[in-house]
């Protein structure tokens, strides 16, 4: 579904990514892991379109998207969450979620301002779809009319996930979805991600530090270290890979569990 091939990314003299390739298969959960500074977030930013790599290509569902701006990639079916929650304050949970569907709607200033039938129908259908497909799935019924800035951290992360899902993306990029959560919240989030994969067959690409979550839900794992890929395979294969163990124990900042 998402093919990232041979990405080389450098900032001035600093090489962030050297020859990184990741293939996220359709309907599968692929994880990118690695010690801090391995280049995971840089990779995501390349995939999103914020950084232009010096070399390499990104293709979604067979279409090359390397030249597209971030907003065009959204229209192509790419959706993303952020490491530090990027919800829009001053708007309710429901409005934030509706923003996720921005590319699927068409109304402009005039059709919205004059409340033309097309615009009204669009909004109605969107609200119904959200109630039907998202609110229940992510258990957001009680908080849907609250302002996002009033919510607890774990809930905010869930709202961000909801927002990323509402456009029924072809590929869902999750940037550290369980960062800062306690174990109960983490297993809850893992459950939601698995449900999304089960019910909608969405392809997922995620970055995470939490090993138990990654090992627990991933179908395929890619390991980066200092911007280079050092291993790829199933959780069992990666867990046993000596290069991976060395990379982690060497820097000593992850506890593989």
């Amino acid at each position, binding site marked *: 579904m998402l093919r990232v091939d041979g990405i080389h990314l450098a900032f001035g003299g600093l090489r962030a990514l050297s020859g990184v390739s990741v293939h996220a298969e359709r309907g599968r959960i692929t994880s990118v892991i690695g010690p801090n500074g391995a280049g995971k977030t840089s990779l995501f930013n390349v995939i999103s379109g914020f950084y232009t790599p010096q070399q390499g290509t990104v293709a979604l569902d067979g279409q090359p998207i390397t030249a597209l701006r*971030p907003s065009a990639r*959204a229209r192509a079916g790419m*959706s993303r969450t952020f490491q530090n929650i990027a919800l829009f304050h001053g708007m309710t949970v429901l409005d934030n979620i509706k923003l996720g569907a921005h590319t699927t709607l068409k109304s402009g200033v005039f059709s919205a301002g004059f409340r033309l039938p097309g615009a009204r129908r669009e909004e109605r259908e969107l609200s119904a779809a959200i109630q039907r497909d998202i609110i229940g799935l992510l258990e957001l019924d009680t908080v849907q009319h609250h302002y996002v800035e009033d919510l607890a951290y774990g809930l905010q992360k869930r709202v961000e996930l909801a927002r990323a899902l509402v456009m029924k993306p072809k590929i869902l990029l999750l940037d550290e979805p369980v960062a800062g959560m306690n174990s109960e919240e983490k297993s809850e989030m893992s459950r939601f991600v698995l449900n999304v994969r089960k019910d909608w067959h969405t392809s997922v690409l995620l970055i995470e530090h939490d090993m138990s979550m990654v090992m627990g839900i991933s179908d395929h794992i890619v390991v980066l270290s200092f911007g280079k890929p050092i291993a790829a395979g199933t959780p069992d294969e990666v867990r046993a890979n000596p290069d991976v163990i060395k990379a982690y124990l060497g820097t000593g900042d992850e506890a593989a569990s």
Partner: protein
Amino acid sequence: MPHAPRFSRNTLWALLLVAALVALPAAVPRYWIYFAGLLGINIIAVHGLNIMTGYTGLLSLGHAAFVGVGAYTVALAQSRLGLPFYLAIPLAGLAAAVMGVGFGLPSLRIRGLYLVIATLAAQFILNFVFVHWQSVTNGDAGLTVQPAMVFGYPLNNETRAYYLILACDVAFTLFAVNVIRSRVGRAFVAVRERDRTAEVLGVRIVWYKFVAFALGSFYAGVAGGLLAYFNQFVNPEQFGLLLSVFFLSAVIVGGMGSILGAIMGAVFMTLLPEILRGGALSIGGTFGFDLSSILVPLRETVFGLLIVGFLILEPRGLAQLWKRARYALHRPPNPDARSGGAS
């Protein structure tokens, strides 16, 4: 933004309000009607600035100049083209929108600070044009405007002009509410809050900045057009920097990013000069001074104090104070806000 389930109650209140406003001229003295007309015009202008600055985060320090463009357009459309009000006013809006986009466009792609500078430049350049392009604007002497003709009736007194303004207010407020509640309105807030994230969600940032700026300037132009018919006179002095500060104060005091806030801010700010004048004259009278010469600088100071004070102390403005008051009266504190995730 209002909670969805309470929609019909709000509509009922709104209808009652409109009914009361329609009946108003029968119940109050003429001076109040004049005032209400002025307020109505200010409301439309403040809606425009609120859409640009409050919702989308594009600061404009030249809003008054675009109001001026609208006013001059109506005056000229009437005298040179003989257009009736229902063509002149939309034309005024359009002219202001084009002018606004013209000044703002180069800055929409880059950092917000540049747009601020561009709007300030617009304020001074347009004012310069109003004063010096004598052949068209008649310079400082200004242009007279004949009353608008509605079905053969000239709107030549406050009451008749008031009804036209009321109708426009209802229409333009509704339009604004509809836009804000739609995909477009959500995009505006997204652009203001986190533009990179908005891009990732597919929102074309530059396009929506353009739309917000054009729409806001259109509102300014319409307000200016109505002002021309209301005062029956247009001159450069009416559209200086102080008026831009006035509109900005209204948006901030009322509450940025809130339709109700725009209205409350306009009401507050329209009343304020009257209160200041009354206060200054009575204080002056008590002590035997003639304080009328300080009215203009007094306004500048008070407007500035309001801007600074509200931004520091209550950035969400009167609308927020109103919401808190209503909450305190009607509901107990909501216990559900922090549940749903163990912490």
